[in-house]
Every structure is written in C-alpha cells, then in structure tokens.
C-alpha cells in the first residue's frame, strides 16, 4: 500500500521531512481503518456462521424428535399392544366354543386378531428401521418376528382342535387348553418382553439424542449473543476511531450497521430460545406422555388378555390373576396412607376406588404410568381427561371383580358372558377405559404436533433473512469507510 516510499539518496530538506511525516501518518491511519474494517467484516462473518450453526442445530433437534425417531418410537409402542390383543382375541375365540354370537361375536374377534397381526407387522417394520446399525436390537426384532410365526402356528392348531370339539362357551377341552398354553407362554414369556424392551431401547436412543440436542439448543443463543457482541464491538471501535481521527460526530452507515447487528442478534436469540422451549414442550409434555400412555394402554390390554386366560384355564387361574395384579400395579400403583401395598385383587380394587373417588383428598400414594401422568395438568382440558381415565379404569376393575365372583360361584358360561357380553360387561368397561386413555393420549399428541409445527415455523424465513442481513451489514461497513479512505488518495 502507501506505507513507505523508497528513501531518497540525497539528504532530505525540512520541507520534504514534514511531507514524509504527513505521508507516514496518513499511511498509519489507512492501515488502522483497514484493520478495523476487516475486524468488522470478520465479526459479521462469524456472527453469520454461528447463527447458521445454531439454527441448524435447533432444526436437527426437531428433525429427530418431531419427524424422525420420535414418531417411530411411538409407533413401536403399539407392537406390545398389538401382540397382547392378538393373544386376548385368541383366548376369547376359544372361550366362545360354538356360541359364535357371544359379546361382539366370533367373527369380530377373528377380524380384530387379523387387524392386530397387521399392526404388529408395521410396528415391527418401524422397530427394524430404528434398530439399524444396532446388532442386539436387530437380533431382538428377528426373534420377535420368528416367534410370531411359531405363535400363529400354535394358535391355528388350538383353533382347529377347538372347532373339531364343538362344545359350549366356557369349557374348552383339555387338548385345546394345552395348545393354547404353549402359545400364550411363548407370547407372555418371550415375545411380549422382547417387544417391550424394543420400545424401551428405541425410547432410550431418542432420549440420548434429545439430551444432546437440548444442551446444544440451550447454548445456541449464548453463542449468538457473544458473537453479536463481538461484531458490534468491532463496529463501535471503527466508529470511535473514525470520529476521533476525522473529527466527525458519527458515520451514518456504521450506525445503521451496528443497530442492525444488535437487532438481528436480539431476534435470533429470541427465536432460538423459543425453539429450545418448543423442543422441550414437544419432548416432555408431548412425546414422553404419549409414550407413557401408550405403554399404559399396552399393559392394560395384557390385563384384559389375562382375564380371558383366567377364564380359559382354571388350573392356572392363580398365575393369571397374579399377572393381572402385577400389570395393574404397573398401570396404576396404589399404596395406602400407612404405606401398605394391597397384595390381592380385592384389596387393590378397593384402594383404587378410594384413590379415584377421593382424588384430591386421597392420603395414599399413586405411582405407575397413570399415577405419574395424572400428577399435574398444565394443558387445557387435561385435568378432566385424566379424571375420566381414572374413573373408567376404576369401572373396568369393578366389572372385573363382578366377573370373577360369577366365575368363582361355578357359573362358567355366565362368567364368559359377563366378560364379553354387551353393556355392563368387562369388555364394555374396558372399551370405555381404552377410549378415555386414547383421548388423553391425543391431547398430548396434539401438544406434540403443535410444538413441532411452531418449531418448524419459527425458523422459517431465516435462510433468507440471515444471509441478506449479514451481507447488508458488510456493504454498510464498506460504504461507511470508503469516503474516509478516499480522502487519502
């Protein structure tokens, strides 16, 4: 640049020395202006890069939670549900014997069985996609698929034997019960645990990704604010230097650029902060509850299956009653005010009755899926939906007690009818409970969808706004310094 002219061979005069000094001073000024200008441009470039990165990270979080693994995990939760309902429908068909019109009827039970078989297939497909790259999980998916084939074979044999034997409702022949035992043991002891673990594992993957993204999205605004402060600092330094050096009060272009940087950073941090909030809402008020309630529904379906098993196989009645109670405690765990846990179905039912009717004044403790889910209700309509779930669950347990009393008094056919037959039956109460559960789940699903949509919308437009604004700032800086530099040409 203009910094130093080659030294003259002859001795400089006083006048030429003064000119030399002036030239050197001018040279120094030019260098400083250029350095500060470069600092401003670098600052703006860094701000651009950091903000772009922060937006990308926030989008990535929504991509995983909102559009990728999140919804798929919710879908794999249906695997357990589909499998336990398959087993329940099989037990129902066997229980009906040749009375094909009991309850919703044999045709309906068979149709539901096929439907659940298809549901299980598509849930397995989701699980297989989520398990990609994880050998242990893929092995699990394969084991469930293979086991399902064996299960269907056993079910087909049991049905064939049952059809051949004929006979009324509630007394399937021993050979049928034996074959069903094989099938249900495969289902209960191998397929259902593996299916449940698959859901848990894919949930764990989503959780880890979320934790990872969440700390990134929380730090995003901080980085943006810091790089914005640096860029604004460089702009102010340039401004101050120019006004001191050229005795002008301010440089309009630089003032606009500085205000623009501050404004942009303000908007970006607000937007990123909102994104972090929406991501949190989508995960914690949306997905987590959807998953917990889907699991509650799946386990409840297994309770329903245990009722059919209990009726079908009196020899194993204790095991199935115990299974029912264990599952019930998983769905809604109750402990009385003294910390005692009811150990039989009658005690459990009475305690749930207390907990549900006294709700606010209940002095015991409610835990388990429903107990945790009904703890607080920040969403509109949530409290009412929760109360409805609890009431319907209580109703289901009451119908269960009635049905067991009838069966224990030796009236098997009537018990089967109380289990599956129309209004007031166990099946009827279960349907009502399931509907309430689905309604509450939908409330959380809507919250999830809204948060994801808000997240997607929030970052929209920034792909254009951000580069345009940063480019404009750079142009303003150059426009601001150009006339000053021109004074030295």
């Amino acid at each position, binding site marked *: 640049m203009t910094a130093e002219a080659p030294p003259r061979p002859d001795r400089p005069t006083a006048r030429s020395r003064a000119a030399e000094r002036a030239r050197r001073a001018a040279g120094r000024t030019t260098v400083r202006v250029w350095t500060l200008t470069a600092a401003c441009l670098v600052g703006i470039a860094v701000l651009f890069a950091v903000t772009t990165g922060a937006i990308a990270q926030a989008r990535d979080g929504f991509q995983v939670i909102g559009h990728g693994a999140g919804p798929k995990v919710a879908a794999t939760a249906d695997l357990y549900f589909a499998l336990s309902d398959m087993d329940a429908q099989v037990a129902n068909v066997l229980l009906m014997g040749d009375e094909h019109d009991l309850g919703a009827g044999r045709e309906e039970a068979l149709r539901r069985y096929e439907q659940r078989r298809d549901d299980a297939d598509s849930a397995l497909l989701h699980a297989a996609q989520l398990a990609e790259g994880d050998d242990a999980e893929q*092995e699990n998916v394969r084991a469930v698929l293979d086991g399902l084939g064996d299960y269907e074979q056993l079910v087909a044999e049991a049905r064939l034997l049952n059809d051949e034997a004929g006979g009324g409702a509630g007394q399937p022949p021993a050979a049928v019960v034996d074959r069903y035992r094989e099938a249900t043991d495969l289902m209960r002891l191998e397929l259902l*645990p*593996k299916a449940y*673990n698959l859901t848990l594992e894919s949930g*764990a993957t989503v*959780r880890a990704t979320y934790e990872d993204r969440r700390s990134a999205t929380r*730090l995003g605004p901080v980085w943006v604010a810091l790089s914005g402060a640096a860029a604004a600092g460089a702009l102010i330094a340039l401004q101050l230097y120019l006004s001191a050096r050229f005795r002008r009060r301010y440089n309009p272009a630089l003032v606009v650029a500085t205000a623009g940087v501050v404004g942009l950073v303000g908007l970006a941090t607000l937007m990123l902060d909102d994104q972090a909030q929406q991501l949190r809402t989508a995960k914690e008020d949306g997905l987590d509850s959807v998953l917990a309630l889907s699991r509650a529904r799946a386990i409840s379906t297994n309770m329903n299956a245990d009722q059919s098993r209990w009726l079908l196989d009196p020899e194993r009645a204790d095991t199935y009653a115990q299974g029912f109670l264990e599952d019930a405690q998983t769905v809604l765990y109750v402990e009385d005010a003294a910390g005692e846990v009811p150990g039989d179905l009658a005690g459990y039912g009475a305690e749930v009755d207390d907990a549900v009717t006294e709700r606010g004044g209940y002095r015991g403790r409610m*835990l388990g899926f429903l*107990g945790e889910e009904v703890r607080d209700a920040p969403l509109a309509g949530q409290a009412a939906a929760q109360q409805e779930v609890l009431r319907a669950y209580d109703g289901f347990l009451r119908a269960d007690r009635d049905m067991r009393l009838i069966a224990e008094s030796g009236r098997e056919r009537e018990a089967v009818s109380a289990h599956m037959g129309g209004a007031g039956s166990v099946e009827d109460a279960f349907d009502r409970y399931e509907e309430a559960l689905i309604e509450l789940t939908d409330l959380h699903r809507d919250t999830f969808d809204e948060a994801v949509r808000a997240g997607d919308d929030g970052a929209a437009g920034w792909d254009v706004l951000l580069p345009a604004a940063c480019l404009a700032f750079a142009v303003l800086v150059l426009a601001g310094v150009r006339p000053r530099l021109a004074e030295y040409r």
Partner: protein
Amino acid sequence: MRSRALALPMAAVLALSACTGALSDTGSLLGRDTLRIGVKADQPGLGLRGPSGEFTGFDVDVALDIAERLGVEPADVEFVEVTSAEREEALREGRVDMVVATYSITPARKTEVTFAGPYYVAHQDILVRADERSIDDVRDLAGRRLCQGEGSNSATRVIGERGVAARLIEAPTYSECVTMLEEGEVDAVSTDDLILAGFLLRSRDAFRIVNAPFTDEKYGVGVAEGDLSGCEAVNRAITDMYQDGTAEALLRMWFGDTGLDLVTSVPQFEGCS
C-alpha cells in the same frame, strides 16, 4: 485487543457448557475404570462371602458380567456387602456404584433408585422336605407350619392375601427357617424361588421346591437415581447377556440341579426413569 475482550465470555461459555455436560453425567456408571458393586454376603447361591472374603453366587456373576460389558475388568470390580435395609442409602451416598442384591423393583423404590433390568424375575415359591408329598401348591399350606424370616412379609402373602390358614412361625433369618425345616420343626418355608434354590444347594437331598410360583419379584440392578444413560447401558448389557447365552449358562450353573423351573429368555425391562 478484540481477542482478549472475547476471551473472558468465551471462557464463561466453555465453563457453562462443561457444567451442563457434567450435570447429566454426575455419578454415572459410564466411563468408570473401576466399579464398586453392592451384593449380599449371606445369601447362598446368590451373594455369599467365603472365609477368605471372596464373594460368590449368581448375583455376583451377573454383576461381573455386566461390569465387563461396561468395559470394567473383573480385577477392577470391588464387591461391597449391602443388607436389604441399606441398599438405597448405599447408592445415595455413593458407597456403591451399582447394587445387584436380590433387589426387587417396586414402584415405591423407583422413586428413590433408578433400576436397570430386571435381569431375572424370581417368584415366591415353597420349600418343603424332600419326602413331603401333601404340599403341591400354596393352598396345601392350610393348617401347616410355615416359617418366615423376621422383617419379611412372605407369610402375609400366603395367609393374608391368599386366605390360606397356615400356622405362622417366625425365625430370625431364612437360613434358620431352613434349618428348622430340616429338623422337622416347621413344614414349609416360602420366599423367592432363587433364594430357596440357594438354600437347597446346602443339602440337596433334604429338600424339594414345590414349583408353584405365586408372585413376581423383578430382580433389578440399582444405580444412582437419575443415571439414565448408565441404566440404559446396563439394560443393553443384560440384553447381550441373554442373547449370547451367558445368562442361561449362569442360571444352569447355579440353579440347574435344584429342580427349579428356570426362565432363560430375557425378562421384560422396567424402563429407566
């Protein structure tokens, strides 16, 4: 000058990110070079301390296997005795990193401890003398002398919850119950089947397990509350342990000769929360 002005806030941000990173990993099981694992010291077949101080049993082997799958060699595992009453406290105070000690997962305990597993679902069952012919399930205990260890509620489950009118006899420990059973002072002992199987190993020909399970005891691996990534890693280790046959081999090695019906496929996990 600009870089110096930036250095301070940068350092603050780095410290902040280090903090949030550290928060989620505080007390996690992962990335440790050594592990302290709480086990029982007086439970034959599950966790028993020998005369020279070494621990043996199914729980001990399961713990070693999990540790190895988490990247900790057996030589770097230190076993610490925990009694049933002190398991939560030992985890809370960080005296142990992990508890594998016939530790049943219950919703109430889940509020204090994060549970991986279960690695096995045990069931309450009944131990009788080998020549006992008239006890085949829990109802046959009516009118018979049933021994219960102090502080346990296994008899409540028989008498209170199942309405079976057994005659309750209490002894300080289940070990003493088993001695009384051998000497004919009681007719039956009822507690977790794996625990009964462990006692049965003491004198194999003297006893018989009835094989009439009537509760689920989900034996879990307790980790520090909130250590979700550690818990998930233990679940993966248990999955692998079942998939490659290690779990079945360990079950057969410890309980294969006891006549107990063993389940050798992976149990349904509780979920880390």
